[in-house]
């Protein structure tokens, strides 16, 4: 044996690989259901696909990205986080590894769903419209990443500040529901602004990107404030 020096490295890749096994249910669910929905909508009428599919994507992206949070919740329960803290890893580093994992899982869900949905849509003879492109680029993709980041970050705070309850099988509880709140709220705002007429593309892009930016900013603040908001002992196993 030799003596060690240098802090612990990022565990992002290890966490991602573990999420493919421990969190596979969520990833498979996110990919399969969003793809089936896309294929079904693309097979129906072109208009309903363009109007509905991009709006629903963030929900499946959030669900599909839960694998990272499942790892975090299990690791806290099993004392792995305690071990990581003892080896010099900071809570922020731990959170960032899980956040990166969630964003990667989101990218996987989006890639699969968009490739299949849009592929079938085009194969059915529909042409790609500006509306579809706008909804995907200005809303679905940025909001999916922002919502997944929000769900992962809020979920880690939530998991750290709560104790597992008997009878609760899921270690992440209601986090997926919390995670889709920003997307739902944004849709409500867009619908509200659009009352009495169509929202112009410019205003839509501004509102959609602004909302995603706001959610991302919230995530950033939560991560930067972690030392103030979360005492280290909250990451210890309650066992």
């Amino acid at each position, binding site marked *: *044996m*030799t*003596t*060690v*020096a*240098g*802090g*612990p*490295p990022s*565990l992002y*890749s*290890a966490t991602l*690989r*573990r999420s493919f*096994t*421990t969190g596979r249910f969520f990833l498979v669910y996110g990919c399969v259901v969003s793809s089936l929905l896309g294929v079904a909508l693309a097979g129906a009428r072109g208009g309903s696909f363009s109007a509905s599919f991009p709006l629903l994507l963030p929900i499946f992206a959030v669900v599909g990205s839960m694998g990272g949070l499942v*790892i975090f919740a*299990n*690791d806290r329960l*099993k*004392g*792995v986080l*305690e*071990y*990581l*803290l*003892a*080896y*010099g*890893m900071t809570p922020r580093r731990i959170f960032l590894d899980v956040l990166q994992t969630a964003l990667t899982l989101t990218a996987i869900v989006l890639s699969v769903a968009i490739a299949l949905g849009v592929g079938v849509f085009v194969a059915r003879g529909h042409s790609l419209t500006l509306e579809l492109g706008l909804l995907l680029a200005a809303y679905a993709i940025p909001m999916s990443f922002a919502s997944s980041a929000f769900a992962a970050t809020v979920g880690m705070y939530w998991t750290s500040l709560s104790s597992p309850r008997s009878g609760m099988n899921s270690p992440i509880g209601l986090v997926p529901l919390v995670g889709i709140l920003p997307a739902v709220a944004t849709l409500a705002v867009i619908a509200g602004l659009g009352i009495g007429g169509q929202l112009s593309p410019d205003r839509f892009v501004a509102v959609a990107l602004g909302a995603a930016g706001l959610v991302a900013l919230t995530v950033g603040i939560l991560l930067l404030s972690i030392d103030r908001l979360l*005492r*280290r*002992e909250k990451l*210890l*196993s309650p*066992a």
Partner: protein
Amino acid sequence: MGARLRDDTPAADPGGGPPGIECRSLTAGYAGTPVLRDLSFRIEEPAVYVVLGPNGAGKTTLLRALSGILLPDAGEVRISGRTLGRSGAQEQVHYLSHVDGIPDGLRVREALEYYARVERAARSDVDRVIDRLQLGELSDHYTSQLSAGQRKRVSIARILLRERSIYLLDEPTSNLDPKVAGELRALILELSREKIVLYSSHNLFEAREIGRYVLAIRSGQLALFGRMDELRSAHFVIGIRTLEPSEALAGLPRQGDYYLRELSGPEEVPGLLRDLEARGAKIREVREMGNPLEDLFA
């Protein structure tokens, strides 16, 4: 898991002063509520230091504070001359929690490779600890399939991946069968020849067997820090077993086959035995009935 593990372990210089732990007026706890209060001590000699105390006294909190998991509310912890929390200090400490700390969804080898990634250890180190802890047959088992004792062995293998100068072990022999617990005690004694080992336990006989020093905590404060062999019971009681009933021992209280006799210290034992034999008692066995460490829990 651990695809980027090195094939060999790079040598590294931890820097800092000579290995040691120094607590200066350490106060630490949870959510602002102190568990340890104004704790001060200094450890420099490589040895096993047994951390004892009743439930809730602060043993686990002490080990967590020394490992850098908990930050001090007041005071300071210095590891080998460096303040804990600054670069290099934590890298000299190995910590074994009372919970296993084994990641879910991995096989035993993958779990060790996961630890090796954190420790920047080499693939060959994983092979070495698998051999040393006799985990070969289990290496392809998922950790969720292991018994509590087997999980503990995996957890112990982790702290052998890389060499550090200080080992903080929180109840390492809990959940282990006597054979494995004995092997672990031998391992700890071997480690303590060159390393500082702090070892918390509820097993007083085990503590007495392997500890050179005792560090007793009561209500978050240091109740005692001294050499194990200098500890003496407030009440020194011996048990005497005879080959046949003897008048010389009549009237003494009994515990099982033993007649109990309280003395002021072990130096009185030879004289007592000579006296009993002179009075016809055929003595088969004499043993100390209490453990001086029990007094620390009184």
